Structures are given as structure tokens and as C-alpha cells.
């Protein structure tokens, strides 16, 4: 990638009449996915791709083009640049323009995800063995109708060169691993996953992630819980204090804090697809989002998150931006453009693209809930929550187009009895409205209980893009929440 004349192309295109800024981004991706099901190999796949994306600001209007790079990369680069300029020129003819950007120093340098073991150097048979053992444990009972285990690693090498003089390279490594059992018993079908459904546990780490997730040590529990859920009672409808396990709280943060603090939503630019936000600019610095226990920040410097990097895709360095402080809404996820529009001073560094072929848009980086020093352990929190319900491991999620009314279903919930988890319930759900819910947050566990989670497939944009995002959090408690079952 270093041999591609990206900087020269950006500088040359910048000299064309009306061109204000040019960004050229080359991305090479290497991926490996292994999935096993019911003792059989389902998929063993390697993916390689190389592409370029060019973004041009022409008379205050953006144009973007993306293309794969192949046999004649210099010609393909030039063609892509012309397509981006043509797209911008066409757009400039209709109620566009006026884009201003917050200042940012041109960047130079290299960033690489730290890791212990290169996953692409681990033999396939080793990986298969790491999945086959837990899978056999999951399938050891005939009531388990299906068991899957999988791992995925992706290395994304990218270079960004701009007409402002930025020239940076990054090598980002993301991994995921998990398992799931589906059981059928006495007319019902239920599932349990570890540590989460879908991609499982996701992080910016090397192959050491697989051992850290301890599939073998959890397989028997997952199997037995899946079976037990089939005959478990449903969660009775009512109101109760609830404790969200850290894996469920991560998704709660994602949907009810991460998305509504995206500044493009707040400015109405996402309304046609995923919706807008109740956190409108007039509320910045004035709106009480939650209780004083609630401190949330966007931070691309947090180790191990899927939003951890050196720079975003317009060359803004990784930084930390408070979003909610002592419950007060104080910040947005932003880009250079939205930072300028909202008068934020500088970008939070959140402009990211799924691939070379997609335009960068505002995305979460790592959006995390602060674990207060001196906060309780989970055991202490459970002891202090008589009559409460503990929710773990998400199964379904839905939230309205302003990010207010939400409903989450989990694989299982437990009654909190005598300071510990008691009776297990199936098909549990809880529902509320975002500020009301976070206002009821009256306890957040301490740092020893905090954990960084990641979601690989956060969907946004049109054309649709998926993105890896991180969420660090400990368990937390919320008062007087409507609960029930689906």
C-alpha cells in the first residue's frame, strides 16, 4: 500500500478548480472465519480484499467514490478519483455546499493494535480443536438440537492521505469467538450463548482472545441452562428493580446512549433510515440524561475495544470525549464537519467507514460507562437488591426512531433471592423510555466488575455499512422498571 501514490493523487486533484479537500484511503483486509456446528465444520474461509475510497470536497459539497484495486491500481485510483469529483460536482448543483470543517493538524505516523499472538499464524487444526471441544460438551445431551462455535479474525491495514498533508497508516486487528446451544424439551425451544449470541465476545486482540473467553469452562453451564430454560417459568409482568449484567448493559449503552449521541442523527441527517435523536443540539449541556451515577464517554484510546485506533478515517487522532457527566448530557460523537456545525471546537474523531468502498460516516468508537472507584462488586449489588431481577445475554432489541422507547429481550433472567441469583425465567424482557430509565440508575459496580464488550455488526448509513464498536461497563442497577415476558 505504501507504494501507491495516494498523497500525490490527493495533491493533484486539489489543484482542480473548486476542489477544497481530497482524502484518499486505501484499505487491505485479511479475514478468517471458522464455524463449526454439531461436530461438523461449517465454514473455513479466508478473505482478502484491496480497495480505495476517494472523498472530495468540491465547492463545499462532498462526493465519494469507492472501487476495488486490481491489476492496474494506478489507473483504477485515478478513475475512482474522477468519479468522486463527478459525484461532488453533480451534488453541488442542488442545495448542497456550505460544508465547513473543524481545524485539525495534519497527521503523520503509524498505529497498530497490540496483540500477543498473531491469529493468522495459528494453525487451522489448533483453531478447530479450540472449537470442537466445547462443541462436544454442548452436544452431550440429546435435548440440544443444535450447537455452534465459531471464531473470526480480521486484520485491516489502511492508509489515509489527504490534500492537507495527512499521511497515516494503521493495522487494526479485531477478533471474535463464541458458542451457542439450542435445546428442545417438552414442547419449547430455547437458546443460551456464551459470552453473547451472534459474534460472541469481540475485541481488538490477537488469538489470546480465544483463551480469555474460556469456551471449555462455560460449555456445560450453557448446555444445562439452555435445557432448563425450556421448562422454566416466564417472567411475571410487573415493575421491579433490575440489575443488568455487563454483557446486556453494553447493548443498552449502545442503543440508548451511543446512537442518540451521534451528531448526524441529532442534526437530522439519519432520519430517513435509522431515525433521529431526542438529544437535540439545544439540549447540549442542559439536559439531564440520567442520574448522577451515570458517566459516559466516547474514547478511542481505551485498550481492547473495537473502536480503538490511532486515527479515525479523516485523520483525527484518537481521543476521549465525555458524553454524559453526572447524568448531564455534555457531548456528541462528531466529525470535523458536525463539530464545526455544532460549534464543538474539535471533532470527537468518530468518522469511520466500513471498507474502502463506503463513505466515512459518524460511528461510535468505544462508548463506555465509567465504573466508579469504590463502586460495589456484583455480589454486593445483588445483596442490596431484594426482590430484583437480573438480566443477562441479549436475545432481542428494539428502540424507536428518537431513541426513546426501547424494549430488550434476554436469553434468561433470574430472580435475585437472598443476595444471589435464584429462579431462572425464560423469554424475559424489560421496557422503558431512555431518560426515565437512566434516571433510575442508582448503583454502578466498581472497576473490578467492568469489562470491554464489542459488537462487530452495528448497521447504519445508506448504503448500509456495518462497523465494529466497543462498550466498556460494569453491571448496574435501575429502579422501578417494567418487566415481563414476550
Amino acid at each position: 500500500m505504501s507504494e501507491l501514490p495516494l498523497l500525490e493523487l490527493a495533491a493533484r486533484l486539489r489543484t482542480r478548480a473548486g476542489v477544497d479537500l481530497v482524502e484518499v484511503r486505501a484499505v487491505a483486509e485479511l479475514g478468517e472465519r471458522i464455524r463449526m456446528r454439531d461436530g461438523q465444520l461449517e465454514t473455513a474461509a479466508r478473505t482478502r480484499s484491496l480497495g480505495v475510497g476517494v472523498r472530495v470536497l468540491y465547492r463545499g459539497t462532498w462526493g465519494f467514490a469507492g472501487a476495488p484495486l486490481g491489476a492496474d491500481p494506478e489507473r483504477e485510483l485515478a478513475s475512482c478519483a474522477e468519479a468522486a469529483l463527478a459525484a461532488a460536482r453533480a451534488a453541488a448543483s442542488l442545495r448542497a455546499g456550505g460544508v465547513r470543517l473543524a481545524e485539525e493538524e495534519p497527521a503523520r505516523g503509524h498505529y497498530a493494535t497490540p496483540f500477543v499472538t498473531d491469529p493468522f499464524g495459528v494453525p487451522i487444526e489448533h483453531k478447530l480443536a479450540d472449537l470442537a471441544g466445547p462443541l462436544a460438551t454442548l452436544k452431550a445431551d440429546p435435548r440440544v438440537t443444535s450447537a455452534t462455535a465459531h471464531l473470526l479474525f480480521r486484520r485491516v491495514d489502511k492508509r489515509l492521505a489527504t490534500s492537507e498533508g495527512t499521511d497515516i497508516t494503521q493495522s487494526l486487528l479485531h477478533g471474535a469467538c463464541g458458542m451457542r446451544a439450542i435445546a428442545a424439551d417438552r414442547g419449547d425451544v430455547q437458546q443460551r450463548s456464551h459470552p453473547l449470541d451472534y459474534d460472541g465476545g469481540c475485541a481488538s486482540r490477537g488469538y489470546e482472545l480465544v483463551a480469555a473467553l474460556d469456551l471449555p469452562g462455560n460449555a456445560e453451564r450453557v448446555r444445562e441452562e439452555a435445557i432448563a430454560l425450556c421448562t422454566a417459568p416466564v417472567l411475571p409482568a410487573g415493575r421491579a428493580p433490575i440489575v443488568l449484567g455487563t454483557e446486556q448493559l453494553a447493548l443498552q449503552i449502545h442503543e440508548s446512549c451511543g446512537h442518540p449521541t451521534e451528531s448526524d442523527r441529532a442534526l437530522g441527517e439519519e432520519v430517513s433510515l435509522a431515525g433521529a435523536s431526542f438529544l437535540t443540539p439545544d439540549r447540549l449541556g442542559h439536559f439531564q440524561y440520567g442520574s448522577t451515577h451515570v458517566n459516559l464517554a466516547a474514547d478511542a484510546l481505551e485498550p481492547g475495544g473495537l473502536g480503538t485506533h490511532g486515527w479515525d478515517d479523516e485523520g483525527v487522532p484518537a481521543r476521549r470525549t465525555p458524553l454524559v457527566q453526572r447524568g448531564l448530557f455534555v457531548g456528541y460523537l462528531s466529525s470535523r464537519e458536525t463539530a464545526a456545525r455544532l460549534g464543538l471546537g474539535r471533532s470527537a474523531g468518530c468518522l469511520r467507514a466500513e471498507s474502502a468502498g463506503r463513505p466515512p460516516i459518524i460511528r461510535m468508537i468505544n462508548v463506555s460507562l465509567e465504573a466508579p472507584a469504590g463502586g460495589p462488586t456484583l455480589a454486593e449489588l445483588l445483596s442490596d437488591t431484594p426482590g430484583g431481577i437480573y438480566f443477562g445475554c441479549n436475545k432481542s432489541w428494539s428502540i424507536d426512531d428518537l431513541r426513546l422507547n426501547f424494549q430488550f429481550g434476554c436469553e434468561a433472567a433470574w430472580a435475585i433471592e437472598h443476595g444471589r441469583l435464584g429462579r431462572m425465567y425464560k423469554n424475559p424482557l424489560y421496557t422503558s423510555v431512555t431518560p426515565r430509565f437512566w434516571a433510575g440508575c442508582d448503583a454502578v459496580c466498581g472497576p473490578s466488575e467492568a469489562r470491554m464488550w464489542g459488537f462487530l455488526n452495528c448497521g447504519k448509513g445508506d448504503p448500509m455499512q456495518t462497523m465494529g464498536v466497543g462498550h466498556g461497563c460494569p453491571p448496574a442497577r435501575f429502579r422501578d422498571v417494567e418487566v415481563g415476558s414476550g
Partner: protein
Amino acid sequence: MSELVEQLAAALRAMPGVDAELCAVVTRAGSVRFAQSRLTQSTVLGECVVQARVALGRRIGIARTSERSVAALRDALAQASALAAQAPEIDHFRGFAGAQAYPLVGPAHDPATAALPPAARIGAVKAMFATADLYGCECAGAYATGEIELAVAGSAGACASHVTSYAKLGLIAQIGAGSAAPSGSSGFYHLSHASLDATALAEQACSVARRMRDPIELPPGRYDVVLEPPAVVESLEWIAMTAFSARTIEDGSSFLAGRAGERVTGAGVTWVDDAAQPASGVPAVPFDYEGVPKRAVTLVAAGVAQTGCHDLRSAARAGVTSTGHAPPPSDEADGPVATHVAMAPGEDTLESLIGRVERGLLVSRFHYVNGLGDPRRALQTGMTRDGLFWIENGRVGRGVRNLRFTEAMLDAFARMDGATAARQPVATSWTGAGGFVAPAVLLRGFHFTGST
């Protein structure tokens, strides 16, 4: 044969004796995005993914590349071979697809739509902005056009290529820019842009937005509802994802599992996946990503469970033949997918459905539906948006503030009391070249459980 499939075949010829399949998907597209009647994004995209699958006996390896030169394809085949050599044998593999006879399909491609320049897309958007101005509304949405070329070649004899085009527009009209601005929506999906009437679409969305001013509040509860086609399709997408794949039938999570021949929902409900002869302008596709001919699959007939969709591997496990529903090449692929689901029409008009509602709601569309809560009942939850109206004594009245529903959709469709004869194609968010087709329906006693 297309140039693309020739390239695939040439790469295979260059590696004689290798049992392999190559599948290429090449997308050429452009889109414009807009909000508050201002362009925010103008994009031109070219994408290519080629998947090589190599079998060494019953050991299979997969490699994908973004490059389509013969040299790159040979490299992918070599990588897939290396992976296959390290993979364990699988029990159910009957080989890649051989030479096939593909069905004659309906219309699929319009060259003018495939090559539509940015200025033409922007021209359509300009017309919508002008119409919205007249209504005092602002527009948000996206308009995308392009083509998707699919080619499959295999050492066992499969050799096929096909191109589909599409024009896809989603529009929301809003009055004001506040977070709770009254809004209405409209949409267009067709293989050709020729019939897109930007002015009419803008009028439709703006008209709904204006009628949504000063909405009333309703308490949660059970209401008779008329769901317009976009709402029906959003629900049907989740049903397809959780129930129509042989994979979910195998693991027991589908409501079709073990229930073939049983009544699972209302007698007026028939759901069919037919990619070769889709209705209403959805681009037709003759074969899947394994080169297997697309077969029409009746999933639910008059409320009675039938069968699911198969790819080669699930068909081998079940001892049947593939129905041609292999997924696109992707890390996320997980078994067969139904991409062209159509719901059978009824005999009503939208007006006649509304006329049979004494007290109820007209639902334009849903938002953020999730159908994973209990797929055996097709349990879904989601919100209304962009048009929810009170119906009283058969007449549409005031707008209503958005509501959340939580409903077992098989039960809800069991209470279906009519569907329109007219159906609408709707682009789905995850089906690539596919699209769903649905009528408007009247469902009695639909369960709303909350509000914003």
C-alpha cells in the same frame, strides 16, 4: 456467456483436476442521500467479491478476493485448496452443482437504470424538493440505482451469469426539523427507474406528514389495524429470517419445524418465495450463488405450514434437492435465505379494509422490528413511524403518536380479516438483488404495548 463468467471458467481451466466452484458478485451503483431538503451524500460505488470453494473429497476450503483477474482467481483457488487440505471431512457433501437448465425468468435488467448518471438521480431529488416546498415540508431519504452481476462457474459443470438492475428510493417528508416533527413516507423499488414519479412520491409522503400534525395519544391495548405493505414486509422479513431457512428448521427454532401440514396461521395467508417470476417489478433471478436453479417454494399455503428453502448442503443433510437458495458469499452467510417472498393478495381495496374497521389504526410502516424473541411464535416487537392514524366508523381520522407493538405474528395473521388485491414491491434491507411483495392487510386485535 458474460465476460465475468468467462474469467471464472478460464481460472478453473488453468487448474485442471481441482474440484472447485467460483462465484462472483460485481456491483456498480450510485446513490444520493439527502436530509432537510439538502443533499448530504453523493456516492459512486464499485464492488467485487469472488468466492472460491475447493473440495478435496469431503473436505472443503473457502477463499474470497476482491480482484477478478485470472491470476487473482487462481490464487484464491490455491488458498481454498490449502484450507481444504487442513479441514476435517464433513458428512453431507454431494459435490458442487453440475451443468444446469435454468428457468426462463421475468424481467431483470434495464440498461438505462444500471447506467443512470449522478445528474439524473439528482434531477429526481430536485423534483421532490420542489414538491415538498409547496407542502411546507422537508425531504430526507436516499435514491440509489445500479446493477448487480452474478456469475458462477464450477468444475462439475455449472456455468451461469445474470445481471439485475434496480432503482430504490426511500423518502420521508417532515414538517419542521424537530425531533418529533410530523412525518410521512413513501418509497419506490423496481428494476427500472422509468416509472419512478418523484413528484407523486413526494406528494404522497407530504400528504401523510400534514395529516400527522397535532397527533392524539392512545393508550396501549388491542386495536384492529390496517397495515400498509411496507409494514407487512418489515414483519415478513423477520419471519423469513427466522423461519424459512432449512437451517432454522433443522435446529427447531423455525415455526415450520416439525409442523408441515399443520395450520400455523390464518387461512388467508399464503407465503411463497419465487425469484424466477417475482411480482411487480422486483428483478428476477434464475439461479443462486451455487449456480443452482431457483425454484418457487411455497412456505405457508392458506395458513398451513409447508417447507423451507435449501442450499446444496442443507439439501444433502435433509436428503432432498436444493431449491436454489444459497446465500451470497460472505462471512455472515449462515445457510439458505429466502430473498423473494411474496404474500398472496386478497380481494379488497385499501378503502374497503379501512371501511370494515369500527375503531382502529392505519399503520403506514414499522420501525426497528425485532423478531428474535420467540421465533416459534414469530414474536415481534417494534414501533410505528411516519404515519399512524385513528380509524373510526370506517374513516381515517387524526394522526396518533407512535406506539410499540409486541405480538406473536402467527396469531396476528390468524386474525387476518382481509387483504388488498393490489400489492407493492418493497426493497428489503438484507436481500441484495431480491425484494418482497405484499398487500395491505386488516388484522383484528393487534397488540400495542407501549408508547414513546
